[in-house]
């Protein structure tokens, strides 16, 4: 063994010192062999046996196993807790809770007449509560067209829209509902603008239209008005 060969080298003591040490050793060796009591021997050996027995008992569940499992257990428990918390806190309001009470739930089925009666009552109630609105005075057409060009253009658009209404294709109500009317109807409005000579308005609408429907072949339809 390396340790042993390294440590058990012969001591390089001076002759005088080694002689003196030998002499001391010789004198002390005359002393009878000093040994501990047998009772002390028994105590120490019993303790040694007991320790090994305790150790064997501990081997059933060594600490190192728990040390190794601690991190995976921590992670998995954290994951389970998160899932449970997500299910219970976030999804709980959407669940229909079962009525665990023994008391019965009364379901009232209303007939159409009853519903109609209720609606009638509600309408009457609204009528009573809402103030009577006076109808605004009509603005003369002349004032709109001369002072406010935007209003006038709007009127013209309405006129073109009225044409569409007459054709049964487009209704003005649809414009108010959506910012972007259906492409067919929108294209027709733009064409209507060109037809009426409202070039600026038609171009601005055309730009918006192209942004919304870049693939629609409107260029072919307005080719006639480009001249």
């Amino acid at each position: 063994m390396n340790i042993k060969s390294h440590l058990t080298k012969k001591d390089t003591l001076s002759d005088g010192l080694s002689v003196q040490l030998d002499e001391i050793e010789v004198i002390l060796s005359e002393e009878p062999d000093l040994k501990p009591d047998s009772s002390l021997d028994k105590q120490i050996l019993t303790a040694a046996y007991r320790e090994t027995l305790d150790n064997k008992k501990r081997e059933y569940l060594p600490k190192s196993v728990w040390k190794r499992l601690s991190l995976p257990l921590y992670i998995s428990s954290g994951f389970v807790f998160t899932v449970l918390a997500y299910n219970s806190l976030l999804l709980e309001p959407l669940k229909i809770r079962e009525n665990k009470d023994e008391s019965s739930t009364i379901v009232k089925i209303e007939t159409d007449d009853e519903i109609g009666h209720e609606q009638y009552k509600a309408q009457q109630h609204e009528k009573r509560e809402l103030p009577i609105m006076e109808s605004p005075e009509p603005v003369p057409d002349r004032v709109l067209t001369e002072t406010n060009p935007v209003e006038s253009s709007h009127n013209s658009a309405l006129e073109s829209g009225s044409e569409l209404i007459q054709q049964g294709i487009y209704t003005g109500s649809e414009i108010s509902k959506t910012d972007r009317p259906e492409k067919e109807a929108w294209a027709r409005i733009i064409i209507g603008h060109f037809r009426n000579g409202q070039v600026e308005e038609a171009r601005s609408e055309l730009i918006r239209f192209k942004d919304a429907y870049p693939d629609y072949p409107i260029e072919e339809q307005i080719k006639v008005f480009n001249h």
Partner: protein
Amino acid sequence: MKKEVNDEQLILQYAQGESAAFEVLYQRHKASLFRYCLRQFSSRAVAEECFQDIWMKIIRNRVSYKPKALFTTYLYRIATNQVIDLYRKEKKRLKDCEYNEESFDNLAIEAHATEQEHIERKKRLTELRKQIGLLPFEQRNTLLLKIDGGLSIEEIGLILDCGKETVKSRLRYATNKLKGSIRESLELERS
């Protein structure tokens, strides 16, 4: 012939649960360690307490033992620390460690020769033990590690955390102080 298992292997076997290995180890070292304890304290009761504590420490720390050094180095390092602890614990015991003639008188010396020779031997041995007891702790400890433990200078240096030269100088001081009693014993032997 069965090959003798060394101390390091025995303590490792004991750490793995073989209590028989400990018994072998104990039988090998109990005499030298007990002598070391007895010469440190002179009082047999204190020496026995120290001896028991040392072995209990070996038993409890068996798993933490790593064969980096010889087992004897490990054993006597624990022994030295235990002796120092006992000195520090009770000042009364520190006084006990000083020479107590009565305690040495209790030691039984086997009579090998005539009654006169027996008395002379007892006398010179008592004188030497007295001188050893009067040595400063560091010198006494170094001397006893060398004589009782049978350790090399390097091993003693490892145990006491000091260099080889320090160990040698401590041994030299100790032997110089013991010269008187050695000469006396030699003269007695010649006459």
